[in-house]
């Protein structure tokens, strides 16, 4: 069975928001910079809570940040 994958636009959104740094985003959402790096590289799929925090940090909806592909 093929695994579902969740992609994200965090990198794009950071640049659209005044070139926000990974460190700054990490501080806003309460995680480490390494987790932001892992998210951008597609190496980590976050919890619902962290996903909402990231979306709120950019002022967009969850689906503007994360896309689900079955």
């Amino acid at each position, binding site marked *: 069975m093929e695994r579902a994958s969740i992609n994200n636009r965090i990198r794009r959104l950071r640049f659209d928001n005044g070139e926000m740094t990974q460190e700054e985003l990490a501080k806003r959402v309460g*995680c480490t910079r*390494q*987790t932001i790096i892992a998210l951008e590289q597609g*190496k980590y*799929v976050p*919890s619902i809570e962290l996903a909402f925090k990231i979306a709120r940090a950019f002022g967009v909806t969850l689906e503007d940040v994360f896309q689900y592909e079955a």
Partner: protein
Amino acid sequence: MTISQKTAWVQLGIFGALVIGWAALFIVNGTVFYWQDESVKMTFYWLSAAAFAALVIMNIATSILKSRYGAIADERDKAIFRRASLWATGTSYTVVVALLLVLAITYMNKGAEAISVYFPLFIVLIGGATLLLTQAVAALIMYGRKVEHGES
């Protein structure tokens, strides 16, 4: 590199060194069943005590950092260590069962006098070291691979 990742490296260093020390002891002195020399047994215990003491010191240092800087592990670190602990528990359990089988087979073939009275303690120490070594290795592998929150 996160603090959790650094602690995994330190843990790997401590228990990797312990396993190398044990292996050297086994190679030079033979298997644990036949150790008659007290100094060999004491070397084994001192090596083990040093490794576990180093682990305690590392955990105290981590607690100090935590009290100073707040949370030092986020949900990804916790997810990685939760999965690594599952791998480590399975591996450690397998090693302990294998050693208990060796103990039973030796007892059946050679009798009680062929088994050191310390052997059950060896099993506990080797099981513990396997658990902590595997946890560190598994965590470091997972830091480089894709991880999903809530996946186990």
